């Protein structure tokens, strides 16, 4: 019997309640103290199509999803047909026996037919509860505690009244009972809640970021919806009154970024979020924020392009876009988290950096990280402090002065900034090149001084950031280099390689501007075999590393399929190349 180590999939068409079923199944396991991680794949449509949600569960911390499936829960025939071949030896499939009166499986896969639709109609509140019957059935087959599910149903449907709650209970119980009565002891996997289960959040990257943003003092969000960033708009809007944040769904992305620039210019911390296409519309204003030295936070939850591309899939195609967007060169920070904890920490940090260094901060997430739910400990907020930098209030200003030299040069490049509305602080900010007071000035000494001053802030910022460090053993056979959400799959691939006595470590790059050239060169200079892992076509980080350090990483595992890396995929790629003369890896 395999206890507490399972990969589960629920599939069906859009509109069958897959997302809520997947979420609820993950939630009931999370509440039992188990570690879960979810992954959803779906096309860009509202009804129909083939969709699935995966939940991987373990009693040990998990860092990534897997493509292996031990138990499939098929809400339609298509799911059965599409996934039967993926099921591991000894695994099983739960399906509606009415769909397949004479279902044929394959060797080593257990078939668990159950009249799902009929039970939903006769025992529950109708066909709409088929997904509830299905989850009840999964819990019954896995011998898990149904009460966790009932509790979740009560929380979800409680406001709709007892009748709805009870019919959901009945649907869940019917699924559970059917499996217990017909298949008890016939499946080699089970799940058991941990004793003294620790309370953890089950949280997505976008939500983790939003909590960091709220903690970071974000007071205004202007956004135009775009998958997969819209959940940031939704989260912030939902909690806007609780936390006194103004959230505006504005007319387009151009308006979104300019609105937050206006807000930041009068001294508030503000945010916009989008995906690559929406960011492309914002590009001009990035330069404005850099020129007038106004800090804003821009989130790009990446998806594959070009153009509309794969709207609901994942990837890391926009690193270079974010680094170079807008004419000429202007200061900015480009940062990418690798997991929900980093979404929170770097999300909080983004607002401090924007405010203190008076620069736009580009926060690069991706669809997988943004939507995948994970068991995460409560965020530690003890060390988090708001730093507003050189912000001047009336007490810091001379009220007799008509104007303030707001763009005066300084050794660190950061000028003191009066809060608009304070006496003695008047200045003009302008997208034109300007002098200390913000007057338009085109003379050469001033141009050079101001350009140098703005760009110098990046060096100052670099000194304030933690340098990248290797995760894993020093002097390893393989050094992985990557950024963003592949982090989790790489960490698990390192464990898989260790079982084969191949040692590997991992250099995660979180900051691209500023870039820690010296530290990266030092680490990679000592590496025996460097493998770059990226979800884009060319290996944008690898090329950046070459540009900044001169180190050419030839071996690149690049996946631009729109689906997230799995640990096994990375492991297999590395094993394939082991012992071979190094050559540029063919994109997988």
């Amino acid at each position, binding site marked *: 019997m395999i206890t507490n180590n399972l990969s589960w999939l629920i599939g069906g068409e859009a509109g069958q309640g897959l997302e809520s079923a997947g979420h609820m199944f993950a939630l009931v396991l999370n509440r039992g103290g188990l570690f879960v991680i979810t992954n959803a794949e779906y096309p860009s449509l509202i009804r129909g199509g083939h969709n699935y949600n995966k939940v991987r569960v373990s009693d040990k911390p998990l860092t990534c999803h897997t493509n292996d499936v031990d138990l499939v829960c098929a809400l339609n025939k298509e799911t059965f047909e599409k996934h039967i071949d993926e099921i591991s030896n000894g695994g099983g499939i739960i399906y509606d026996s009415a769909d397949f009166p004479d279902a044929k499986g394959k060797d080593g896969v257990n078939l668990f037919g159950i009249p799902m639709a009929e039970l939903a109609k006769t025992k529950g509140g109708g066909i709409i509860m088929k997904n509830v019957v299905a989850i009840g059935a999964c819990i019954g087959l896995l011998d898990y505690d149904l009460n966790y599910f009932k509790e979740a149903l009560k929380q979800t449907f409680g406001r709709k009244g007892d009748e709805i709650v009870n019919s959901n209970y009945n649907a869940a119980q019917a699924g559970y009972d059917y499996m217990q009565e017909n298949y008890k002891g016939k499946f080699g996997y089970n799940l058991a809640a941990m004793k003294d289960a620790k*309370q*953890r*959040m*089950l*949280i997505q990257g976008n*939500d983790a970021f939003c*909590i960091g943003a*709220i*903690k970071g*003092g974000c*007071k*205004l969000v*202007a956004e135009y919806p775009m998958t997969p960033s819209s959940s940031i708009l939704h989260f912030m809007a939902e909690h806007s*009154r*609780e*936390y*006194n*944040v*103004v959230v*505006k769904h*504005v*007319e*387009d992305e*151009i*308006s*979104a970024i*300019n*609105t*937050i*620039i*206006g*807000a*930041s*210019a*009068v*001294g*508030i911390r*503000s945010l916009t979020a989008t995906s690559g296409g929406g960011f492309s519309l914002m590009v001009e204003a990035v330069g*404005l924020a850099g020129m*007038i030295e106004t800090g804003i936070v821009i989130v790009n939850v990446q998806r594959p392009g070009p153009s509309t591309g794969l709207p609901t899939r994942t990837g890391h195609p926009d690193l270079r876009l974010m680094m170079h967007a807008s004419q000429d060169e202007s200061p900015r920070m480009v940062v990418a988290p690798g997991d929900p904890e980093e979404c929170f920490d770097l999300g909080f940090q983004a607002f401090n950096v924007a405010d203190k260094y008076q620069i736009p901060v580009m926060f690069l997430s991706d669809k997988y990280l943004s939507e995948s739910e994970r068991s995460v400990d*409560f*965020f530690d907020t003890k060390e988090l*402090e708001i730093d507003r930098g050189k912000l001047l209030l009336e007490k810091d200003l001379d009220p007799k002065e*008509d*104007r303030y030299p707001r763009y005066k040069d300084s050794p660190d490049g950061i000028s003191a900034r009066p*809060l*608009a*509305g304070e*006496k003695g*602080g*008047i200045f*003009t*900010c*302008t*997208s*034109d090149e300007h002098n200390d*007071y*913000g*007057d*338009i000035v085109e003379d050469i000494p001033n141009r050079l001084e101001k350009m140098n001053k703005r760009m110098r802030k990046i060096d100052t910022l670099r000194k304030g950031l933690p340098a990248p460090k290797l995760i894993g053993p020093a002097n390893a056979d393989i050094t992985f280099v990557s950024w963003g959400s592949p982090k989790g799959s790489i960490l698990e691939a390192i464990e898989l390689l260790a079982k084969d006595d191949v040692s590997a470590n991992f250099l995660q790059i979180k900051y691209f501007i500023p870039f820690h050239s010296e530290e990266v060169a030092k680490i990679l200079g000592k590496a025996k075999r460097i493998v770059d892992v990226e979800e884009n076509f060319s290996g944008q980080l690898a090329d950046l590393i070459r540009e900044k350090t001169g180190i050419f990483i030839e071996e690149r595992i690049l996946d631009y399929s729109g689906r997230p890396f799995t640990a096994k995929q990375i492991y297999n790629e590395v094993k394939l190349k082991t012992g071979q003369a190094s050559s540029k890896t063919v994109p997988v």
Partner: protein
Amino acid sequence: MASIKKASFDSVAKPDWCPGCGLFGIQMAIKQALTELGLEPHKVFFVTGIGCGSKASHWVNAYGMHTLHGRSLPIATGAKLGNHSLTVIDMGGDGDGYGIGIGHFMHTMRRNIDLLYMVNDNQIYGLTKGQASPTSEKGMKTKSTPFGVVETPINPIALAINSGATFIARGFAGDIVHLKWLIMEGIKHKGFSLIDIFQPCVTFNKINTYAYFQQRVYKLNDDPNYKTNDREAAWKKAQEGGDKLPIGIFYQETREIEEEAEPQLLKQPLVYQDIKNVNIEPLMKKFV
């Protein structure tokens, strides 16, 4: 007419507009209006787009923001939401507001945020040296339309009426006293105020000159029978053109402003709210 007090809104730097430009009159009207309203320079936030007139934020002594072509309205909106205790005024040209920025123009009007938007409407692109603008008359020959403009011009007043602006007016740069009055009314108005301003461009527009306007403009509000709360009457007036060009307040109504619709802003402006002690425990607990 009230006597003009010493204008503390005078800037250190001086305008670089062409001699005789209508913008001088507009700039003077703005400074006089701000002064007569008794506003303090540090409580005024003056946002402008890009264009000849948009340089005005450098030449009025107040917190100023000279931004991007067509984007001043979202920026002014953000500034007002960030600190609604500031008097936010915004100015751009006809290319800025009715061309590249027309989407923001319409949406800002329906939002009814409490700010004044002035459009120096010279029916030509000045700073790029003489191309047709969205308000250039049909047939007008310019550098970009050597055979004459073929499009029908934008009617900003009618557009504003349709888009839900709550204060809609037109001024003339050649009548500073009247324009100053409009600006004062526009600032006092609670909600979005539009003042479209006929502004002669002495360099590039040889048709819509001072003389052209002086012969045609008449004051709408001199007519005691004209009611500014009548949308239909305003719409009809907005259609007038050719030899008779009405200036004054076309339409005004009271409607809930954005700042009142957001309870987050009721207690105090966002900028003065504490951000150092935000408790996220309740948020985290929602995910358990």
